[in-house]
């Protein structure tokens, strides 16, 4: 059944969407979209290291993204630079270093477009295992830290005062972000992973009145985006990442129409 590349891509994409749904809600709630971008940009460096030392790509990306997150935290403590400047610094410098290293790796043929925008042809059965096992682990850990993470998202001091240990939850969440980028890079590509996190969650925000509903709609939106995106990718011979993101944008626009209608109904 997994012999067909398209089935593999579909199964991989659905696995990714199941995880980006709830994580994306936290990215939107905690205003972490540029943080996600930074981790994703640094993933290129992770990919090049994987090729250089013949490591597993997801593993190498996970290590590099976690490292970048750690460096960011240290820089925040030790400099007076604003957060967005630090994020930009890390994002572009790690992307640049990654590209420079690629220049040196002349003995390997790189599919840069595939790296940046995703390539459904590249998904192997091993990738499926990484996505589904890794994804299940991410969701399990997210469920365990849900309470303190959510409470501190609403109000840090309430969570801390009432004994929920929000700092630990935040640190674990950062690792989960690095992990989702690592497992989804082949599908969506590093320039568009943040879109996969944010757009379905943003769509869900438009049509939900409670956090649980937002998570569920965000997952459904992600799954639909993958299905629509991959089928149109096959049909029009476009890259998988942009097709999925474009599909999620389409759903987002639909959710805006929904708001207008419900306002009309109320009046």
């Amino acid at each position, binding site marked *: 059944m997994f012999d067909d590349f398209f089935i593999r891509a579909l199964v991989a994409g659905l696995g990714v969407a199941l995880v980006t749904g709830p994580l994306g809600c936290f990215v939107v709630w905690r*205003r972490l979209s540029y943080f996600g971008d930074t981790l994703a940009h640094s993933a290129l460096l992770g990919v090049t290291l994987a090729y250089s030392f013949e490591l597993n790509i997801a593993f190498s990306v996970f290590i590099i993204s976690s490292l970048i997150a750690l460096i960011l935290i240290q820089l925040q403590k030790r400099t007076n630079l604003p957060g967005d400047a630090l994020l930009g610094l890390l994002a572009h410098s790690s992307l640049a270093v990654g590209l420079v290293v690629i220049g040196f790796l002349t003995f390997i043929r790189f599919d840069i477009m595939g790296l940046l925008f995703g390539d459904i042809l590249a998904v192997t059965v091993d990738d499926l295992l990484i996505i589904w096992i890794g994804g299940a682990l991410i969701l399990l850990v997210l469920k365990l830290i849900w309470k303190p993470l*959510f409470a501190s998202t609403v*109000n840090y*001091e*309430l969570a801390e005062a*009432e*004994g*929920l240990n929000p700092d630990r939850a935040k640190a674990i969440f950062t690792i989960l972000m690095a992990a989702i980028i690592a497992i989804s890079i082949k599908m969506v590509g590093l320039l568009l992973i943040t879109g996969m996190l944010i757009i379905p969650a943003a769509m869900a925000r438009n049509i939900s009145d409670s*956090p649980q509903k937002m998570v569920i709609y965000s997952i459904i939106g992600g799954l639909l985006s993958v299905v629509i995106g991959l089928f149109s990718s096959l049909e029009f011979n476009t890259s998988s990442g942009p097709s999925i993101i474009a599909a999620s944008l389409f759903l987002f626009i639909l959710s805006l129409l929904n708001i207008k209608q419900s306002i009309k109904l109320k009046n």
Partner: protein
Amino acid sequence: MSSNNNLLVKLNNAGYQHNDKWLVKGVSLRVEKGKIVTLIGPNGSGKSTTAKIALGIYKKIDGEVEKYTNKVGYVPQKISIDWTLPLRVRDFMLLTENLKDESINEALSLTGVIHLKDKNLGNLSGGEFQRVLLARAISKKPELLVLDEPVQGVDFTGEIALYELIKKISDELNCGILLISHDLHTVMSATDHVVCLNGHVCCSGSPIDVAKNNEYKALFGEQASQILSRYEHKHDHVHTNDGEIKKN
């Protein structure tokens, strides 16, 4: 030793500095089960900071904090909820504790906002939100309640009712309360112990003791001192039918 079993939180010469400036220094106080300790003092005197030290929100502190309970309910002075969160009152009630629906309803009824249960948190008025905050703090039946100006923005009749509620909670749950308030009238009638802050502990003791204290008078003025003393309730005179005062 029995008094130690009732001890919930104890500050020993505690202080906190931020950007090389002491927000508060040398505070010692203890909150026990069933007792209400009130912090008073002018703006910027370190009341909220002291509460946050007691709660363990500030970690790099001077002195010592000993906290003997993890069942804490907190009503912060300032809280801003983000519009990016779709959060109803009922979701907010579950923020730090998994409560049964009955407990949520009970707490919301006590503070008079049960009708807002399905409303979005962002659509509440200031007073309504304050009542929800208080309901959330008491719903988990905490051992220690820290209330930082819990009735700000609540209408006058509601204010009195809520202070009565706070007193009732302290009796019924036998929980200790660390209260911060500006309203000397309402607070003093129920408080067991007053700590008057002005960057440091300016004086502390029973409401009556504090009212007589000269430093307190200097800080708040003679009038405030009279307000406090009024709660002494020494009935040293009676009013006759024609309004004359007759000394006992």
